[in-house]
């Protein structure tokens, strides 16, 4: 086995065989699926029925309210002899009551009055929105009567126009938001992976330097081979972890989905309207997802992860070599991680403006392109092909350059102890010959 092969093997095996790696690799997908399942459970749990006490100072607003299966609405006082404090008192004493809805007299006078919703356990957004809608509808009807407008006329006045975004070439409706979310997910994943594994490279270099083993090793292999061996070895650790995560997530995910299906969707079957309504939105999302070129996106993900990792990994290796311990690395870390952080922000902002020139430039600049280009590729746009190619070429050229530069700093830095390193000092190292 070649020497660089030996180094790659050691870097890889020593990390993969660690307990913490196994734990992260197995727990990662479990946690991820767990969070998702948890979120779905939480969402579904709202379906438990609520007892809601209503104290209505207007007497009229709550009149048309009817209890449903989920929201058991009860008007507290119809005689006008009791006040809010009495309502609160009985809300407090009766354990079966979940919420107390208070509608003050002023609520009908203005267009944006507000009522109160007292709770023992904070109500879900869904519950609050349902109650708001109920109150608004009731007030609207009262006002219609007062203004002598028929419900029919009112319904004709009320408009709800929506715009469908359609790609003029394919003639298909496209949901840019969904695509942008997918792009963001990919962009953020590369960001995380580059950052995580780049930091591992830096820590590895610091460990070798501070444990003083490095001089023994560079008497057997070239410093550049040691640096590259470490970077490549850790890259394989990253790819392994990623592959395992994808496999485990899909296994756990499908198991979890199966469980959720049988428990919840059987109940939902009872109301076909809900399903019809939901499937419309879902179909839109699924159509959009199907439009995305997944093969391209996953291919790009690997390219940009590897390219971006090599670029940042080399720089992190240089930082690791320049400092004596992790605390000293901060001053150099900030300027290097800033573009990475910036690209992360850009991707999040891209959801609202997928065609901004900032996004274009950031997808070309190699320090931001690994994150930004992925997001753009997911959204898809005219003439992206040549942009992807130039961005890839730029990334390749740049990581070769940073690796060369890092090699120079690394070579001098790893044997330098107890010296406070400045940027000028680093520049000197780059200029050293041989």
């Amino acid at each position, binding site marked *: 086995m070649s020497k660089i092969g030996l*180094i790659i093997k050691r870097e890889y095996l020593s990390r993969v065989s660690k307990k913490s790696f196994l734990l992260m690799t197995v727990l990662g997908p479990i946690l991820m699926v767990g969070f998702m399942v948890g979120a779905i459970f939480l969402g579904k749990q709202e379906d438990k029925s609520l007892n809601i006490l209503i104290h209505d100072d207007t007497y009229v607003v709550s009149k048309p309210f009817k209890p449903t299966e989920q929201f058991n609405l009860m008007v507290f006082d119809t005689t006008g002899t009791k006040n809010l404090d009495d309502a609160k008192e009985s809300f407090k004493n009766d354990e079966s009551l979940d919420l107390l809805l208070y509608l003050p007299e002023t609520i009908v006078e203005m267009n944006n009055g507000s009522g109160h919703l007292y709770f023992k356990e904070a109500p879900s957004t869904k519950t609050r929105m349902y109650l708001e809608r109920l109150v608004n509808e009731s007030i609207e009807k009262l006002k219609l009567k007062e203004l002598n407008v028929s419900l029919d006329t009112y319904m004709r006045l009320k408009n709800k126009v929506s715009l469908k975004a359609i790609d003029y070439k394919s003639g298909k409706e496209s949901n840019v938001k969904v695509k942008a979310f997918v792009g963001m997910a990919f962009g953020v994943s590369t960001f995380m992976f580059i950052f995580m594994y780049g930091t591992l490279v830096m820590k590895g270099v610091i460990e*070798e330097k501070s444990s003083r083993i490095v001089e*023994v*090793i560079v008497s*057997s292999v070239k410093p550049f081979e040691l640096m590259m061996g470490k970077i490549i070895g850790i890259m394989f650790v990253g790819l392994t972890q990623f592959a395992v995560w994808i496999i485990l997530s899909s296994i756990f995910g499908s198991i979890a989905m199966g469980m959720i299906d049988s428990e919840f969707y059987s109940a939902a079957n009872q109301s076909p309207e809900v399903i019809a309504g939901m499937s419309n939105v879902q179909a839109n999302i699924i159509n959009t997802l199907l439009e995305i070129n997944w093969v391209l996106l996953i291919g790009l993900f690997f390219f940009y992860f590897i390219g971006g990792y090599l670029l940042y990994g080399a720089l992190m290796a240089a930082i690791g070599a320049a400092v004596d311990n992790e605390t000293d690395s901060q001053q150099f870390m900030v300027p290097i991680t800033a573009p990475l952080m910036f690209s992360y922000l850009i991707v999040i902002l891209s959801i609202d403006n997928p065609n901004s020139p900032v996004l274009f430039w950031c997808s070309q600049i190699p320090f931001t392109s690994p994150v930004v280009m992925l997001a753009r590729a997911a959204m898809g746009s005219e003439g992206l092909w040549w942009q992807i190619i130039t961005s890839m070429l730029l990334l390749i050229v740049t990581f070769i350059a940073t690796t060369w530069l890092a090699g120079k700093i690394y070579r001098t830095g790893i*044997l330098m102890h107890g010296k406070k390193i400045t940027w000028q000092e680093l520049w000197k190292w780059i200029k050293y*010959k041989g």
Partner: protein
Amino acid sequence: MFVMNEVTPVFEARNIVKTYANHIALDNVSISVPPQSIFGLLGPNGAGKTSLIRIINQITAPDSGEILINGEKLKRKHIEDIGYLPEERGLYKKMKIGEQAIYLAQLKGMSRNEARTELKKWFIKFEIESWWNKKVEDLSKGMAQKIQFITTIIHRPKLLILDEPFSGFDPINANLIKNEIMELRDNGATIILSTHNMESVEEICDDMALINKSKKILGGKVKEVKESFSKNQYKIEFKGNMVSFANAVWGGWEMIEKEELSKNHFMVQVKLNEKMELNNFLKGLLDAVEVISFNKVALSMNEIFIKMVKENSDTQNVSEK
């Protein structure tokens, strides 16, 4: 036909110059190490020893000059012929010792199986078989040093470079290593030993070079160097008048040091010229003063080291002014 009447040195450095941004680490340094010998590379801290050692190990390259191994220009392949124990040395803390030793041996070109077999032998020899599966963080400093020594010599290098090999060892283990080094030499290895421990230089080194402020200021066989420093030098303790001592023998000698121990009681150090016969000098003295003791001067390596470095620094300071 040209006949070589001298043995080709295992290692030779010719006119090595190495400069860093604003200082010269090595200024035209040449050394030559004969085969199967132990060579003491001496010098104060920061003299340039480590720079030279790193050049031999191809960690850095010289600005000019050349390094020859067995008469061949230094190349990448020579790495496997060299074993290097750096002064700043360590091991991977979290890696098992056996695995780590195999890895380091593989980097020196050994196969996995060969490395394992050889390592087991050494572990048995040093009575440390039980450490094979331990981690370095569980070992003491001295224990780790033993492992480092083994990994330096495991691939049977023809040239061994040991930088302060005794530091961190207790006297018993230092002795063990010392014997090991001599055995390696007797079995054919050539060793460059960089150390501040002058006692061990006298004890085990055959040749030496002294580097100070990036220049070689002294070199040769250890015995000859010592001899040259004490040649024709004597310490004399006498009672009597200093003036009569000085006039006892006219010419052919010089006084290097004098010390008044008490009134009319002196200790002096003299150096005789080539032509002056010791007996004649003594005869002259006996007539003039009462000689209490008379001894040949024998400087230790330690004294030679301090003397040379001091003198060298003084002359440099003068020339700089």
